């Protein structure tokens, strides 16, 4: 079949959704299909230009595609007789972020009309779908709550599982992935002052802003932790990142209320590493089960310090948690071939 993957394009910005689209296309081709990615430009500021861009998407004509797999608003408004949604997220400023007071839409009646417009267009578009999949239970619940549509959860697989065969249970706790306030790497550094002196911590990944990196560097210095905390705050080649994961005693990942399992946790589980997370980390807890695949602490330094100490002092325990994490991950059966099959079923 000829399958068009339809995604948004924010010119000069490349992120997780773009990577997902690339790997979706790659795996569609591996499954014997023809596939292309259509990236439709979308600029959400100023908000008053959103409606014309919705019209734009609606007015495009597609030809020569048997199926469309659409990922994001407003690209998913595109007309096609066989459209499957793999919804990464809606325009959250018109939904949950509005309710949370974090919307870029104007206040008052102008904003109300915009939100109504977006909701109506979404509803019409979801109604046209052959099938709707969501990338997480959170996205699914939002769709149900705000638009009244049911969906199946189809978690995005990891893209390069072969890089995460695991390895010796090492002597450090690894925290990888993007570095920012929401991912709370600073909590781990703060925890180090209460943890046993044998605990070592490695934080590696790209900071969202230079200030995110500066904050961690300053904290390590203030606490005098530079002999036990290693910072590698930059974009890492995948191989370097994988080496950190494969050699760790455990992987710590404690984002605030994440939508999904999170690539960091999925990759750690693939490598058979014990996981450390916090009670408010949302979707991540789908993989981190307390005292089974790792330890779930309260989101505060003291509680985290206990978890980090427990895992560092007992390698056997860390290894057992890691094996259980890998087993749980494999039981979920999340792989690209299975994902492609579900999307095309």
């Amino acid at each position, binding site marked *: 079949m000829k399958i068009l993957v339809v995604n948004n*394009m*924010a*010119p*000069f910005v490349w992120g997780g959704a773009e990577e997902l689209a690339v790997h979706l296309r790659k795996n569609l081709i591996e499954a014997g299909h023809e596939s292309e990615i*259509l*990236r*439709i*430009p*979308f*600029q959400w500021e100023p908000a008053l*230009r959103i409606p*014309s*861009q919705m*019209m*734009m*998407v609606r*007015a*495009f*004509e*597609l*030809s020569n595609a048997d199926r469309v797999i659409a990922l994001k608003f407003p690209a998913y408004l595109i007309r096609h007789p066989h459209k499957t949604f793999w919804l990464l997220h809606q325009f959250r400023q018109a939904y949950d972020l509005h309710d949370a007071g974090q919307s870029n839409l104007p206040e008052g009646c102008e904003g109300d009309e915009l939100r109504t417009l977006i909701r109506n267009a979404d509803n019409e578009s979801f109604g046209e779908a052959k099938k709707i999949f969501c990338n997480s239970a959170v996205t699914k619940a939002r769709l149900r709550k705000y638009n009244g549509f049911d969906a199946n959860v189809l978690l995005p697989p990891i893209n390069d599982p072969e890089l995460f065969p695991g390895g010796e249970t090492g002597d450090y706790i690894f925290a990888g992935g993007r570095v920012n306030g929401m991912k709370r790497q600073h909590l781990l550094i703060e925890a180090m002052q209460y943890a046993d002196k044998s605990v070592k911590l490695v934080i590696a990944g790209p900071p969202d802003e230079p200030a995110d990196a500066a904050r961690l560097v300053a904290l390590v210095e203030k606490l005098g932790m530079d002999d036990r905390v290693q910072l590698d705050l930059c974009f890492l080649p995948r191989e370097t990142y994988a080496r950190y994961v494969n050699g760790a005693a455990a992987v710590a990942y404690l984002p605030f209320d994440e939508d999904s399992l999170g690539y960091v946790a999925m990759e750690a589980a693939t490598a058979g590493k014990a996981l450390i997370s916090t009670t408010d980390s949302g979707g991540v807890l789908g993989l981190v089960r307390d005292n089974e695949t790792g330890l779930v602490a309260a989101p505060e330094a003291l509680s985290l310090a206990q978890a980090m100490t427990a895992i560092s002092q007992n390698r056997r325990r860390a290894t057992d948690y890691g094996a259980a994490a890998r087993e749980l991950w494999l039981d979920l059966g999340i792989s690209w071939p299975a994902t492609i099959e579900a999307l095309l079923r």
Partner: protein
Amino acid sequence: MLEAEGHQVERVYLPQVDHPDLLFQQMAAYRWVDLSAADRVICFRPPAHFISHPHKILWFIHHIRVFYDLWDSEYRGFPDDHTHQGMRDALVAADTVALGEAKRVFANSKVVAARLKRYNGVDSEVLYPPVFAPERFHCRQFNDEIVYVCRMEHHKRQHLLIQAMCHTKTPVRLRLSGKCGGKPYAQELRTLIKQGGLGKRVILEDRWISENEKIDRLADCLAAAYLPLDEDSYGYPSVEASHAGKPILTTTDSGGVLELVQDGINGLVVEPNPVALGAALDALYRDKAKASAMGGAARERLSALNISWSHVLQRLLA
């Protein structure tokens, strides 16, 4: 190429379906594209020129031709009635406005530049599109073969060359390389070869030709043929042949190709009939020294016309 110059570049590639009834809706869609995140946009094919941007540069490669120069042709495909005349007038008016918004308008050939002037009253600068990585092309020898590396389509007129082979008096050979657009034309070509008893002297390669194969064919051949019917631009096959230092055989009605090829200097320009083409094939075979000299002149012609990426970048970013 822009990236090599240190710029950040994104390619925006949007869908478009040719149908008069869908024309204005799609024009509106392109008008609503918001690329304000970019410092500059460079637009090629219509309706991309409708994109609104404060620093829009057009490298115009053709109009929606059925409403322009192909109106009075078999290609129009819809009636010459009030509805479609109205569409045409509205399209021309909208095109003229969109062209007027651009900081600069470049055309890919003199033919297109003349149309922009005639139909829209817009002046443009001719900026010839170079081929990708031209340094890959080179000359190894001058064998006995005329090659035509191009998609096989009726309007590319591979059939004329086969017919011309029936009129040759020398052992010159012909190689047609490229994927055939349709089965009937492939069949027609095969029948012509059979009827002419040319099985030994004409090679028909009806398949996708890799870049390396193309480079090899051009490196070894005696000359390259390119004789489309009234094409807008000079066509990549003739530029690739020039980079390989090979003369180009073309015809008096090939349109934009004649902007590049000068008869007797960097190739041969003959009447589009089998007899004249046959004589040209023989002439190339008989005088290889001349063919080689014309091949050298073909390379020089590229510099004379400024067909290079450095020139393109300099003009697009001026």
